[in-house]
């Protein structure tokens, strides 16, 4: 039985010097057979396992993770959550996630520090203005809150932005989604892991998948560094390494894995109480609860699995940040890192069955998967349990690259990919 976290449990454990907290999840050895195995213990994979157990009564399942849970892109993103996407399919998908975010801490009994501080997207040229206005209208038709702001309103909402007309990329306006914001990324992985574990899901860390065993056109199990695990259903949620797993099953995916970088500054007092993103100059910034500025840079243009990126990408982002926020000119950056993002040609994800029975893929989230974590897990669990997609992820099938029915967010997303 899992003890609930509350102010009383906090007081009780304080009295015993915090030495008797219950383990948040077990460390089991893999069983010989499961009803389903999720490959990848990031936020999306753990959420999938959580909803499989909770909504579909599949408790004899496991999550296998080659490193430690939340150690990949879950712990490397810039924690931005929003749902202001242009196309109906994307709006449905991301707003489904946003609605789950709004009650997630209560549901998981784990504080994911979801903060609806708003996300503002800036326009720097006339085409940006037209695109952002169009997106605002599309959002509102889909029931997603969005407002268009003039330059003065942008300045009022975030006073440290340089809105002077003589900078290289002047701010001509922007959009604001007030329900959007940030959450604590590690807590999302830990909260879902704790919740899934409490319902009997085995979370097996340091267990790398080495092969997928097929019998004709259906899955029989997976070879791992901890031995063979028999299962009829495998859900792959391996982000940048999706193609590596797909190759083991003899499947081709339309993905390219590229390094995406982010960086944080030294911690300072509260200076920016929202998230500001700029597509044209590719810079986005928010402030963590510790006080660090969290800055997202762009992807490199070559395939790499190194979790590093090129210096000039960071330099370009910081040039843009400094022009938009002259007040940051003497801030020092503390850490920089890279994550490997799997990018689809249309920059939309794949949540889909495959030509192999019992093999499912949840991948292609590219540079913006964190925001979708709860929705992605919920819909992927539905897809695995019913062997059919939910209506919200039906458009995100693998077959769209054959039919041509792409969800082309590439130019329409809030930042360039």
């Amino acid at each position: 039985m899992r003890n609930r976290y509350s102010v009383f449990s906090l007081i009780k454990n304080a009295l015993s010097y915090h030495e008797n907290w219950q383990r948040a999840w077990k460390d089991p050895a893999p069983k010989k057979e499961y009803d389903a195995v999720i490959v990848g213990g990031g936020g999306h994979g753990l959420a999938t396992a959580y909803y499989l157990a909770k909504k579909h009564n599949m408790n004899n399942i496991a999550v296998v993770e080659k490193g430690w849970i939340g150690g990949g892109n879950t712990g490397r993103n810039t924690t931005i959550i929003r749902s202001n996407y242009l196309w109906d399919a994307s709006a449905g998908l991301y707003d489904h996630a946003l609605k789950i975010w709004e009650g997630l801490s209560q549901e998981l009994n784990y504080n994911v520090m979801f903060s609806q501080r708003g996300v503002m997207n800036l326009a720097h040229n006339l085409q940006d203005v037209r695109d952002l206005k169009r997106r605002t209208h599309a959002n509102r038709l889909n029931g997603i809150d969005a407002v268009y702001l003039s330059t003065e309103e942008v300045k009022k909402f975030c006073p440290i932005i340089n809105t002077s007309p003589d900078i290289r990329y002047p701010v001509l306006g922007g959009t604001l989604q007030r329900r959007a914001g940030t959450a604590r990324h590690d807590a999302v992985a830990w909260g879902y892991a704790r919740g899934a574990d409490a319902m009997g899901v085995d979370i097996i860390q340091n267990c790398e998948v080495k092969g997928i065993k097929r019998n004709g056109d259906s899955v029989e199990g997976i070879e791992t560094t901890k031995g063979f695990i028999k299962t009829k259903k495998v859900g792959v949620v391996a982000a940048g390494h999706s193609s590596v797993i797909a190759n083991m099953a003899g499947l081709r995916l339309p993905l390219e894995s590229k390094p995406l970088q982010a960086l944080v500054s030294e911690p300072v007092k509260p200076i920016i109480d929202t998230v500001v993103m700029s597509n044209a100059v590719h810079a986005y910034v928010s402030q963590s609860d510790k006080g660090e500025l969290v800055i997202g840079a762009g992807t490199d243009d070559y395939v790499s699995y190194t979790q590093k990126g090129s210096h000039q990408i960071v330099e370009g982002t910081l040039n843009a940040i400094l022009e938009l926020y002259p007040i940051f000119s003497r801030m020092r950056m503390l850490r920089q890192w890279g994550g490997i993002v799997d990018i689809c040609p249309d920059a939309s994800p794949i949540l889909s069955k495959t030509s192999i029975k019992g093999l499912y893929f949840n991948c292609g989230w590219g540079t913006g998967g964190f925001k979708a974590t709860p929705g992605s897990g919920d819909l992927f669990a539905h897809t695995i349990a019913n062997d059919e997609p939910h209506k919200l992820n039906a458009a995100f099938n693998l077959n769209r690259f054959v039919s041509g029915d792409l969800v082309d967010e590439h130019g329409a997303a809030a930042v360039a990919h």
Partner: protein
Amino acid sequence: MFLINCPYCGERDQQEFKAGGEAHIERPKQPTELSDDEWAEYLFMRKNIKGVQFERWNHAHGCRKWFNMVRDTSNDEIKAIYKMGEKPPTQ
């Protein structure tokens, strides 16, 4: 960040180059004969290998010529560089 030995200009900073994706994807000889599956394969499906991969690069801020590269994507080590039209080196 790494250095790239352009076959026309010599060793230059990676910053001067643009990656052009997977190499040796042949344009269909008879486009009108192709099925939707074959088009998807040609247009979208990629090897995306973790390990040694063949790619195209362009010296965008230099001679602007295209060439091929063999690179290990797990550590960014460049194994070989050869001109367009040349046979890829056998391992």
